[in-house]
């Protein structure tokens, strides 16, 4: 056991050395998200107000935990003090003992809260509870009522021993000797009791609540130290507290509160003298991932959305989010038409594998495997995104992916919907289906696990609301998120995938069609693409004439425009965007639509 694997320096006298060890322990486990998750971590937030403190969630518990560093002291472990061959004075401090308060914050609607102290319940029912938890260490007195246990961290100055100990009452019970009346007229004959005289004001199974958190911490230490912890438990008792109406607290002579502790230790024991410990064979409540084989394969998300809905814009923003957190993600891009404009736009963002001139949902299904193999070989990342053409039917793509289960684990199907395109006629009667209810658009909405309603700022709030309820009617299981320029709270995608790790995502539900019927493809809807190149700069009028042709629904490209130089041209849902791009190489204009003349 080498403490330097967690903190690569000797311990000093900063009075916060144990906080440093704790920070390093937890932070070091979070370099790779999948590793942190397989240990059971479900999010951590440091909160430095006043004391070093953290809030976190762990797998298998609905609570938010608060951990606050209270301080540390030098000490001598029992094993060290009695060592007969030691030259040192028996009392010389040889380890540091740090204390951390543990807080348990159940969700406001959790029945568990009903057994918490009344002050805790009252705080939880007040506005802003969940946000205030984030700063629990800031000294708000009401949060004291959530403090239910303690974590001890012992570390030897020699760097050869570390121990983590959870200590909490088996049941944290405080008796209200005089009861607590529900109104001020407590002495009225018809007193209504919130807590009857002599009954417990709170009764919380504190030790059990913290056990999952402790198991995650101990497993994290095991991984960092590359050593199995020696686990033991102990029990001691203290008098139960009794509360009187005048505010007095006193020991309740008849009753005892049992303090339980569990220690995970590495190296020589650092237990204080007098602690009776029973060894355990393994760590109780240890988190085990349900599907270990699933974790070994990279996850493949599928991104769909009708022509021009904003898939690439969304993707670039998502990648920015992921890469800012060192979650490297490769992209397989498939475009309808010869020119890989999207790939050009993503240049330098990440590794992009382009599958061109065809569509993965039909003609390119066979080239998906070699494409995936190429990108996985080039960048063995933990996740990839397949960006399909705007005309791809995800049902057909999912079918193709079923044959690739040896390469990738299925992730989310995300459909970017275009609020402008789908808002329909302004005269649409309430409840009537809009353009989303037909053909490829419908297929993309129906198969989505997440629907991003993009360009939500381009329609009125009422139109947006109506559209969202129509989308929900088509697909009640998907997470629906309105977006502007493809911006969503991206962490919600992770949370959505996590929440559905056991229950099936809509995209994975087998799609049963009536006999003789196949899923719609864009070929049947008569879409085709054509590329127009321009030797000379084209005038704005010519461009507008070109895109005004009946049946044309999408145009994109890099072309020279009179007076503007080289520009990126994007056209979808009757909106034309021209962005000067001086450094780009002209690549022609791809026109996509249903008119054969295009």
């Amino acid at each position: 056991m080498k403490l330097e694997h967690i903190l690569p320096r000797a311990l000093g006298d900063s009075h916060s050395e144990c906080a440093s060890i704790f920070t390093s322990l937890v932070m070091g486990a979070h370099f790779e998200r999948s590793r942190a998750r397989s240990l059971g971590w479900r999010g951590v937030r440091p909160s430095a107000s006043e004391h070093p403190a953290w809030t976190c969630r762990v797998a298998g518990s609905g609570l938010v935990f608060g951990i606050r560093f209270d301080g540390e002291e030098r000490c001598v472990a029992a094993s060290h003090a009695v060592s007969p061959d030691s030259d040192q004075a028996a009392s010389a401090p040889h380890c540091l003992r740090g204390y951390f308060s543990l807080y348990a914050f159940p969700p406001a609607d959790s029945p568990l809260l009903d057994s918490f102290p009344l002050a805790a319940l009252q705080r939880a029912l007040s506005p802003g509870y969940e946000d205030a938890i984030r700063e629990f260490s800031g000294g708000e007195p009401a949060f004291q009522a959530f403090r239910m246990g303690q974590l001890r961290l012992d570390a030897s100055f020699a760097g050869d021993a570390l121990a983590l100990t959870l200590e909490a009452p088996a049941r944290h019970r405080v008796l209200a000797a005089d009861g607590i009346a529900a109104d001020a007229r407590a002495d009225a004959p018809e007193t209504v009791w919130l807590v009857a005289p002599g009954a417990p004001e709170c009764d919380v199974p504190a030790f059990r609540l913290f056990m999952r958190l402790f198991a995650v911490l101990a497993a994290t230490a095991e991984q960092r130290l590359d050593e199995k912890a020696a686990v033991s438990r102990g029990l001691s008792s203290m008098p139960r507290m009794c509360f009187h109406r005048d505010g007095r607290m006193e020991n309740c002579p008849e009753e005892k509160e049992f303090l339980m502790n569990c220690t995970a230790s590495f190296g020589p024991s650092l237990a204080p003298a007098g602690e009776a410990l029973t060894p355990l064979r393994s760590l109780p409540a240890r988190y085990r991932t349900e599907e270990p084989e699933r974790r070994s394969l990279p996850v493949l998300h599928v991104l769909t959305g009708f022509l021009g809905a904003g898939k690439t814009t969304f993707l670039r923003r998502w990648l920015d989010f992921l890469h800012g957190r060192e979650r490297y993600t490769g992209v397989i891009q498939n475009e309808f038409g010869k020119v890989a404009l999207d790939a050009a736009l993503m240049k330098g963002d990440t590794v992009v594998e382009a599958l061109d001139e065809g569509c993965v949902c039909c003609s390119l299904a066979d080239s998906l495997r070699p494409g995936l193999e190429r990108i996985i070989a080039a960048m063995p990342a933990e996740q990839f995104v397949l960006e399909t053409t705007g005309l791809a039917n995800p049902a057909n793509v999912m079918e193709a992916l079923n044959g690739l289960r040896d390469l990738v684990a299925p992730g989310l199907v995300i459909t970017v919907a275009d609020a402008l395109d789908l808002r329909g006629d302004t005269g649409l009667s309430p409840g009537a289906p809009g353009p989303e209810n037909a053909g490829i658009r419908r297929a993309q909405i129906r198969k989505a696990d997440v629907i991003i309603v993009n360009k939500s700022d381009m329609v009125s709030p009422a139109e947006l609301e109506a559209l969202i309820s129509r989308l929900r009617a088509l697909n009640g299981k998907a997470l629906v998120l309105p977006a502007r320029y493809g911006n969503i709270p991206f962490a919600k995608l992770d949370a959505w995938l996590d929440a559905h790790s056991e229950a099936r995502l809509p995209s994975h539900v087998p799609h049963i069609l009536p006999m003789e019927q196949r899923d719609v493809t864009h070929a049947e809807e008569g879409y085709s693409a054509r590329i127009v190149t321009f030797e000379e700069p084209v005038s704005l009028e010519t461009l507008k004439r070109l895109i005004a042709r009946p049946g044309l629904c999408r145009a994109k490209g890099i072309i020279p425009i009179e007076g503007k130089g080289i520009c990126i041209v994007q056209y979808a849902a009757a909106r034309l965007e021209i962005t000067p791009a001086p450094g780009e190489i002209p690549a022609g204009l791809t026109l996509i639509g249903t008119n054969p003349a295009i």
Partner: protein
Amino acid sequence: MNRREFLKGASLGLGAGALGAMGLYSYTPARSAFLPDVNRQMADFGVCRSVKVTNISETSWFDNGVFMKNVTGAGGLLVDQYTFNWAPFGNGKGIGKGSYEEGIARIKPYIQKGDLHGAWAVARENSVDADNAGGFSCLVEVEAMDGKVSRYLFDCGWNYDWMEESFKREGIDNMLANGEIDGFIQTHEHMDHYWAFPVVAKYGPSVHVYTPSTFYPQGKQYIKDSGHTGEVTEVKKGLFSLQPGVALYQFECPIIFKVFGEMSLYCNVKDVGLVSITGCCHQGIILFADTAYKELKYEKDQFYGLYGGLHISPFDDWDPKYDDLVIGLKKWNLQRVGCNHCTGLITAQKFVDAGYPVVQGTARFRSKTTNYLGNGDIITFPA
């Protein structure tokens, strides 16, 4: 009576009564009762008049795709940076099979001659994707209350060729040679911030170097192997004062690629507020800002300005709606921001969209967006 229903409904009148008194007790194990309480310390580290930051280079590497191929190919984020076979410590054995000792042996003769271009050429032969390397470095000029200007070189980049060119562009080579740099601050040991150190040592071998105390042995050896002869100060965790109004803060945190500890620079500008300069902010901007609030006394209690790369947090937030840098920084009400490097091109765009006071750059010398304070750009605090 159901306590939840009661508290939801008629609780207000009860607050001062029995329930109020009840809330004061808590679980207090006897053992921790004597521990001293820790309060907001508010260290007074003086004031300065103004701060000017010149971005020498913020482009750590030029193609993210190539970089990510390197990282995933070598085994991921836990791999020791010295074993990647990145330049200049290549040994010709391929990705993930390098070592500091073998790498430095090949280039040391060139470094000793001052032929850094030659050293990098050798490194290029033996390393993976040497030309993708760029670097992070900036010059911080602090005007003291008496008008005297101190200059701190803040990190030194990665690629010898790129950094020598960038130093020359901003005149750093001459400043080092003329002893006009008062201190060289190495924020952390990462390759893109540190591995062009021989360029610093070539022009200013005696410059005073500040590093976190937790450099690994290779990192410490590299200072010597680069021909540096001046003083080296290893900064322990916490606050370290450089001059009135200017202090380093060492955050102890493990960082990807087996690096430990990162320093940031805090400047307290008279009548303006706190200005912070970061390398990557691996400790996370949330902890970084909270720490300043908790531990430092600064003008007008105003967190005024920020320059550098901004990592939001090393963790996923447990509440997905908060996992966003724009939201995370809102409460500080910053007045002047120059972001770049690892911030993210689109995050920078989001700052602009959200109305943050982002100082725009000029997107020159291979910087990619005007939302970044790019290579060769300058930001001053106050404006």
